[in-house]
């Protein structure tokens, strides 16, 4: 088969109107909705949710998770194009870490040293380590499926970012149930749970995002 022959086939194949951004956004929304439904059915938010929502420590967990999910998802969207450059957007990935580091410093200043250990270990670390990856499954799957329409030059990296976005969404959902609000707890366990999902995303990316 020669080039001209192949061109015959390609020209005869109709235009497929795929809109990447919309597909990705839809996938993220559907994945988050599925995880939220699962969470509400199985656990639900903690009983004192309304009260907790008025404390800075509790709210910070959501801000932090959002600070991870938003730039990760935006970078996924960008890296789906083969000629993409991550650009300044990649710098935004520093935001959740900077935010968390600031919160940890403040907590260390506010809380007496003999309480540091108990705050760090908390009571829910096993929950945190299992529920975040579990609640990430739906958004990660949806994101990877949607991103198969893309053409990322770095499939593993793009998959890892999808993992980070999914973990951010899952953390936001899980945080409403978790009673450990101290940044010392958050900095110890949330990133660990996130890392599991990021690794899963990288593997899935290498496997499913090749083109």
């Amino acid at each position, binding site marked *: *088969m*020669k*080039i*001209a*022959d*192949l*061109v*015959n*086939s*390609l*020209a*005869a*194949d*109709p*235009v*497929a*109107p*795929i*809109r*990447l951004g919309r597909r990705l956004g839809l996938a993220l929304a559907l994945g988050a909705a599925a995880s939220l439904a699962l969470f509400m059915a199985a656990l639900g938010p903690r009983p004192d949710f309304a009260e907790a929502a008025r404390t800075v420590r509790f709210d910070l967990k959501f801000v932090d998770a959002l600070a991870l999910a938003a730039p990760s998802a935006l970078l996924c969207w960008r890296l*789906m*194009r*083969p*000629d993409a450059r991550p650009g300044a957007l990649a710098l935004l990935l520093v935001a959740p870490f900077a935010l968390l580091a600031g919160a940890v410093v403040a907590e260390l200043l506010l809380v007496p040293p003999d309480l540091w250990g108990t705050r760090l270990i908390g009571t829910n670390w096993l929950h945190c380590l299992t529920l975040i990856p579990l609640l990430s499954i739906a958004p990660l799957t949806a994101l990877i499926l949607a991103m198969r*329409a*893309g*053409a990322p*030059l770095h499939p593993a990296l793009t998959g890892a970012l999808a993992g980070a976005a999914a973990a951010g969404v899952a953390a936001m959902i899980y945080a409403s149930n978790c009673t450990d609000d101290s940044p010392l707890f958050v900095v110890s366990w949330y990133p660990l749970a996130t890392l599991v999902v990021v690794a899963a995303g990288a593997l899935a990316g290498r496997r499913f995002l*090749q*083109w």
Partner: protein
Amino acid sequence: MRAALAGDEAAYRRLLEEIGRAVRAMARGAFSRMRVGDADIEDVVQETLLAIHLKRHTWDGGPKLAPWVNAIARHKIIDAMRRRGARRLEPIEDFEAALAAPEAQDPHLRSDIGRVMEKLAPRQRDIVTAISLDGQSIAATAARLSMSEVAVRVALHRALKSLAAAWRSATQ
């Protein structure tokens, strides 16, 4: 490309042929620089065209098409060189400078696409062959196979996707 995305088949055909020539020049430049023989060049060109076709919605529609085409071509050329076991992988920046080259006419050219085509389902292979090699129209193919035109289009699209997938698995 804009016209092609709007459904102008003739414009798309011209564009693909032009891209094919540019990619051939890029591949030839890269292969000779890496001292890889150029037996695979036509395969790389075809694989790149297929990728460009299947991923055309990843072009952002901006003022320039070339960076997007080059990114895909570079990706596919590097893949092909890896497949050939080229050890010295150096950054390949100046493909674009190479001149457009004519298609090689060597009848003994070793071609992967033949092998890749064998992996298609018989009906898909039939459709691709009819439209590619025999230059038949969708309508004629549909009539011959007593399928609807839509079904032929869908089958063709699936066949092109499996072609790309088969190629990919040959790479890994």
